């Protein structure tokens, strides 16, 4: 390692101690600091959305609607969805881990447009403040899907402020995606060819394409809803000459690919973790990279599978059903290739690997139940029931949140310069896994039995399964609070992290922990493939971990 700059106090200068005071954070153009700004913001929204979820689960403990009023309940599930989707799931991995890691992984000093990166955070904050205003001003009750004409005429809640908030968050997402695409094209270090990019970078490249191409569609669509609400422009409301199904087409044209905005970066994280803790190169690098792009492209062609019972023609339904099966192929490749990567590896089970195992398992269940939904005959029955709720939570919470937590543990030493407590990490991963399954598995059964989603009260025969689900949600909440606590604890009391605690491949592990402001002391020159674990040796045992400095 080349000589590092030293601060006045004698510490090595890094991005965290390079400036002090609020101004040094709020006006920073350092991608790593902006990533931390995003981390704080999305964590805040995650716990708000989670709080709504807990209230929902508490209400559903009994069949009667007795904890909150119907209108309140409707607002709770609406805002749970909107906060989680637009203010946590979509920005989480790209804006935090992607932002922090992509420039370092490709050997760059920063993203291509550092100021646009900061603008992206400010747009997110404007959107977030509007969302908070919406919540404090009495909430919104349209469902996160904003179906017309309910949202454009009948709802009496704060639809406009919610829409404008999501509109801003959308532009934040577009700018992040744009920044990533340009950065990955233009800023790679010498020798970092496309075929040497970590899959994490490929995953974000695929994600960015969706963000840039898809997000404008939902932005325009939501603006049209607002215009119809304010000016009675007849676009979606049949009593004004509009077409309510047009809204659903436009909404899902973005919102289905948006699922891949959430899950693709997670797949990138899992690829990094599985390789590192198996000490193996990824099985089928090219297939894995192409599968990511394939999912992004085919993901744009399946949106109407959300509309099989909405009144689209039989032939349209047949085509969208078939295309939905097509998108399952690259997803299957990914699961099989991760499994094959472990084969003949030298596997250890640190916290990130536990989350990666959890991801593969839960994503498998989420993906396979997606095949049920793509099948027209079954979808007609389970559409808009708890089966759907279970399915997409298996993908978004079981998949994406597991991957996000795995990534946070994996790169926490790099981000904070401290080690998290391994024992607590493993315990939390286990609690999350158990709590998650107890929360959402009963919902598959509830769904096939016919319990519709978004029900404030429900017939008594559904109660036992709902009680199980609520119990699981309580456990899950503990599992999510734990990392929050020990991450903060570790920032002060954690062992100082060496540059490469996992002995992992990848440029981010060749610089200091935490990295200096411009990431590397000298611009790296890459002469190796990604995942060159044959040259990396084993993960150091605890006692072997060299102390930093």
């Amino acid at each position, binding site marked *: 390692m080349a000589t590092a700059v030293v601060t006045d106090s004698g510490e090595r200068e890094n991005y965290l101690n390079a400036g002090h005071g609020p101004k040094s954070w709020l006006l920073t153009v350092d991608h790593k600091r902006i990533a931390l700004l995003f981390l704080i913001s999305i964590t805040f929204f995650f716990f708000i959305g989670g709080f709504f979820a807990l209230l929902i689960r508490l209400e559903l403990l009994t069949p009667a609607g007795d904890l909150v009023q119907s209108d309140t309940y409707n607002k709770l599930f609406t805002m749970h969805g909107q906060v989680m989707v637009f203010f946590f799931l979509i920005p989480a991995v790209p804006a935090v881990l992607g932002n922090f890691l992509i420039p370092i992984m490709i050997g760059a000093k920063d993203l291509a447009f550092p100021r646009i990166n900061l603008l992206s955070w400010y747009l997110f904050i404007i959107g977030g403040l509007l969302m908070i205003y919406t919540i404090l001003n009495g909430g919104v009750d349209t469902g996160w899907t904003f179906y017309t004409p309910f949202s454009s005429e009948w709802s009496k809640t704060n639809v406009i402020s919610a829409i404008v908030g999501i509109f801003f968050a959308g532009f934040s997402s577009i700018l992040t995606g744009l920044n990533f695409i340009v950065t990955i094209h233009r800023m790679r270090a010498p020798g970092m060819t496309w075929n040497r990019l970590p899959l994490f970078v490929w995953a974000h490249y695929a994600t960015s394409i969706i963000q840039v191409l898809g997000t404008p569609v939902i932005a325009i669509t939501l603006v049209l809803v607002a215009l119809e609400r304010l000016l009675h422009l007849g676009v979606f409301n049949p009593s004004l000459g509009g077409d309510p199904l047009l809204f659903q087409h436009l909404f899902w044209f973005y919102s289905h690919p948006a699922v891949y905005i959430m899950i693709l970066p997670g797949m990138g994280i899992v690829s990094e973790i599985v390789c590192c803790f198996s000490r193996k*190169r990824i099985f089928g690098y090219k297939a894995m990279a192409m599968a990511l792009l394939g999912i992004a492209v085919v993901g744009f062609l399946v949106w109407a599978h959300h509309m099989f019972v909405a009144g689209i023609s039989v032939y349209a339904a047949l085509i969208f059903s078939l295309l939905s099966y097509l998108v*399952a192929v690259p997803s299957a490749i990914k699961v099989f290739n991760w499994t094959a990567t472990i084969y003949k590896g030298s596997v250890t089970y640190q916290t990130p690997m536990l989350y990666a195992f959890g991801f593969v398992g839960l994503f498998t269940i989420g993906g396979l139940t997606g095949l049920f939904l793509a099948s027209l005959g079954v979808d007609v029955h389970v559409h808009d029931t708890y089966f759907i709720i279970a399915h997409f939570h298996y993908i978004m919470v079981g998949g994406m949140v597991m991957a996000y937590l795995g990534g946070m543990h994996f790169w926490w030493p790099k981000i904070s310069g401290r080690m998290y407590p391994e024992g607590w990490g493993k315990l939390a991963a286990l609690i999350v896994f158990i709590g998650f399954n107890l929360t959402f598995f009963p919902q598959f059964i509830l769904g096939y039995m016919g319990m519709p989603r*978004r029900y404030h009260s429900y017939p008594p025969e559904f109660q036992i399964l709902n009680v199980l689900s609520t119990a699981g949600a309580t456990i899950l909440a503990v599992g999510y609070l734990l990392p929050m606590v020990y991450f903060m604890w570790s920032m002060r009391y954690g062992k100082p992290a060496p540059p490469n605690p996992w002995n992992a491949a990848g440029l981010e592990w060749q610089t200091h922990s935490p990295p200096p402001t411009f990431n590397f002391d000298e611009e790296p020159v890459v002469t190796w493939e990604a995942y060159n674990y044959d040259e990396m040796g084993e993960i150091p045992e605890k006692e072997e971990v060299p102390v930093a400095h």
Partner: protein
Amino acid sequence: MFGHLPLWPENASTNAGNVDALYIFLLLVSGIMTALIFAVLTAFAIRFRKRRGQRAVQIEGSTHLEITWSIIPFCVMLVFFVWGAVIFFRERTPPQDATEVYTVAKQWMWKFEHKGGQREINELHVPVGRDVKMIMTSQDVIHSFFVPAFRLKQDVVPGRYTTLWFRATKAGTYHLFCSQYCGTQHSGMIGWITVMEPRDYEAWMSGGASNQPLAVTGEKLFTELGCVTCHRSDTQGRGPNLAGVFGKPVLLEDGRTVTADENYVRESILEPGAKIVQSFKPVMPTFQGQVSDEQLNALVDYVKSLAGPQSGRPANANGMAVATPQP
């Protein structure tokens, strides 16, 4: 409270068994897949755990393997697709002689009207073993007609008709849920489908106050609203003669041909200019805002009755107004 734990919905229609069969097949196949993946993962995780003096063996990948585990699952998925499509196609193709029930959904109730003029709210009586076709529209927002025991669901959309059909197989009462979120009392928009033995059903239908058949109500409206002055029963009217029109292809001014189904008749009343019949002029005024959804149903049913006993054939399997080329 924890008396018994139901895990499977009741089976009360000819469709339910079909859906269950596919669902069980899907459960089996995906169960085997999950078990396989979990078993292999666990086996690898144990067999290849870190051991002293043993290094990982680097493997590039294998195109052959990757192609194998892409193509085989895709072929299995094609079975899911075809099987599901067959069920769906059957679900969306109502039999010709189905008993029709008109449905108007509104926040937060289901209003039904039988052909004989019997009206019901949040409760629908149907016979065992006879095909029933629901012709549905909404007065306000989108609702969804969902009967778990029939494994059937169809969104009910304002401004158009959507249809759904079933044949009940077992007498009893079954939940009718609104499954599309529709506002405050969404979870209270629950009704019951009462399936009765044909004898009980006939008794139920003929009981109560004497009702005026829907088509007769429609005929009266047809006169009251002045439709009859132009749509005369000869060829001299300014509008087309409606006798025998329903269910048949209609040649339009712009050369297209559409089938005169429920949605076409509805649209022609509310938006007369949308589809002008060939050799007629766009002189009809709109009745938007002047007739309620219930009155529209009566008018549609009257026009249907003018087609004679062979009526009731919808345009396409989905019951939507879609232009179909003339054979």
